[in-house]
């Protein structure tokens, strides 16, 4: 409406104006304006839109920053030139297009290395988390196969780690999946004993110096950070930094993978491979030998530039964002937990990434709550498994009861989340959990003081 009025005023001025050049100028401006509106993409063409797609002025709030984050405008601004004018292949060494792209990619590599406290030569670009993990797990395992053939990982790793390990098992490697404590962190004592037991069984534990070095529980959600290069660890310290990237400083791991879809950047990944002492990997992909032979294939310049710029922004904003994320996360938690009883937060309360809140609402079915919270884009688990109704295997590994695992919902808080969104989400969640519980016969029984766990359900 305002725009119409503005245009109308312009036209009036044009009519009143006697000066020909002003008239032309204004007309040009008006048509420019009109063109801008006409050029705007209203509905992106999708092959088939769902019938329950919300209308354009009813978009849900975005609270699923663990699956991906909105792109930071600063990052898009850095990327756009490489989508438009500078389209060279960064591996072309014979002309200016190649040189400028190469310089941009190298700058991005430096920015990533700076964020994780590494040398730029230790960072290689990949297509994302899955490829990074595949190279890290399978690549290293295959390279050291003659000397080391035991892989140790945890039960809560991402699917791409677990599946790579399964593939290695088929190739003849021995794989141990360490259990985790209820807070999601590996119990060092138990794990150590378990490993020693395993090795005693295999009569391999011959040399004391080969014993485990201390393994430190890591400051993130449901992940293990291990430090050992003498023992039979083939993934010496593979670290999944996906969801806390931008909140970590100076990790000294052998391998570290980062994906910037979770840090307001574009969808590309990087893998850190330590140089000293050197960790070597066998390439999975054969080809032109790009990325020092470890990942053949042309590097996508704009995406890498975006990742580098996302790292640079993250480095600058780390403190600011972290403070705000903690604030918002506490706000949401308190609002929900103060209003309704029996809300359990999954994961360790302290050693966790504040931007990810995984809540279990007892006696409420997670899927029905998700359906009720249509105005908020949420998820019950990772995007990879969001098609199935099965509860997350991570929640099972941490020992959550089946009914609680079924009722879990993940709230993600990002750089662009606002207080109003948090309040809206909390209010709506409280409203619907209360409503669903009022309908639930189980909740009624609990209110009457019946212990649900003691009931013997008869089977028909």
């Amino acid at each position, binding site marked *: 409406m305002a725009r119409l009025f503005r245009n109308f005023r312009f036209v009036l001025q044009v009519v009143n104006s006697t000066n020909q050049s002003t008239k032309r100028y204004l007309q040009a401006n008006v048509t420019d304006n009109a063109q*801008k509106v006409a*050029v*705007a*993409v*209203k509905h992106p063409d999708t092959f088939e839109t769902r019938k329950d797609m*919300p209308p*354009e*002025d*009813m*978009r*849900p*709030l*975005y609270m699923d920053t663990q699956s991906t984050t*909105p792109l930071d*405008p*600063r990052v*898009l*601004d850095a990327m*756009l030139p490489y989508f438009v004018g500078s389209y060279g292949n960064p591996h072309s060494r014979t002309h200016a297009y190649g040189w400028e792209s190469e310089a941009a990619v190298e700058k991005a590599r430096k920015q990533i290395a700076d964020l994780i406290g590494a040398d730029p030569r230790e960072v290689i670009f990949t297509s994302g988390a899955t490829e990074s993990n595949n190279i890290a797990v399978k690549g290293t395992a295959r390279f050291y196969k003659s000397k080391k053939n035991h892989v140790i990982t945890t039960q809560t790793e991402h699917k791409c780690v677990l599946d790579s390990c399964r593939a290695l098992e088929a190739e003849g490697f021995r794989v141990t999946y360490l259990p985790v404590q209820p807070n999601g962190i590996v119990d060092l004592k138990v794990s150590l004993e378990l490993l020693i037991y395993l090795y005693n069984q295999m009569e391999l534990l011959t040399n004391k110096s080969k014993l485990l070095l201390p393994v430190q529980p890591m400051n993130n959600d449901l992940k293990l950070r291990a430090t050992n290069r003498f023992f039979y660890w083939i993934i010496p310290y593979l670290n999944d930094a996906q969801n806390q990237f931008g909140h970590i400083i100076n990790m000294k791991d052998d391998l570290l993978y980062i994906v910037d879809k979770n840090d307001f950047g574009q969808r590309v990944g990087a893998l850190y491979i330590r140089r000293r002492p050197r960790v070597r990997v066998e390439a999975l992909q054969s080809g032109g030998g790009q990325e020092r032979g470890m990942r053949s294939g042309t590097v996508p310049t704009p995406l890498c530039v975006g990742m580098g710029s996302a790292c640079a922004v993250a480095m600058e904003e780390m403190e*600011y964002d972290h403070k705000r994320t903690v604030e918002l996360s506490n706000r949401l938690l308190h609002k929900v937990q103060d209003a309704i009883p029996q809300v359990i937060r999954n994961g360790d309360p302290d050693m966790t990434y504040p931007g990810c809140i995984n809540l279990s609402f007892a006696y409420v079915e997670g899927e029905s709550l998700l359906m009720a919270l249509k*105005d908020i884009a949420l998820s019950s688990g990772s995007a990879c498994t969001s098609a199935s109704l099965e509860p997350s295997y991570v929640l099972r590994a941490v020992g959550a009861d089946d009914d609680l695992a079924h009722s879990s919902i993940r709230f993600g808080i990002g*750089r*662009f*989340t*606002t207080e*109003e*969104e948090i309040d*809206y989400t909390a209010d709506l969640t409280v409203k619907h959990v209360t409503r669903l519980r009022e309908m639930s016969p189980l909740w009624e029984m609990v209110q009457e003081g019946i212990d649900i766990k003691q009931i013997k359900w008869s089977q028909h």
Partner: protein
Amino acid sequence: MGSRSKALALYKQILQESKKFTSYNYRNYAIRKTRDEFRQNKEVTDPQKLKDLFKKAKDNLEIVQRQVLVGQMYDGGRLVFNLEHFVYRYW
């Protein structure tokens, strides 16, 4: 023009441009970030640091101007949220 009035003018200009973001989240972030950043550096007097900050502010102003345009061209639509309409209309 003293650096104080220069900073104030720049601050105002960035805020004005930030209010044009069609996306509710980007708009709020830009406004909040600009406000916090200028407040945080209110007391800076070191000329070199001032120069750097002015450069950063100008770069960011340009980014905001460009990204507002991009946002208008590829508008994702409005959020459900009632406040959104309010904020969008009256800012």
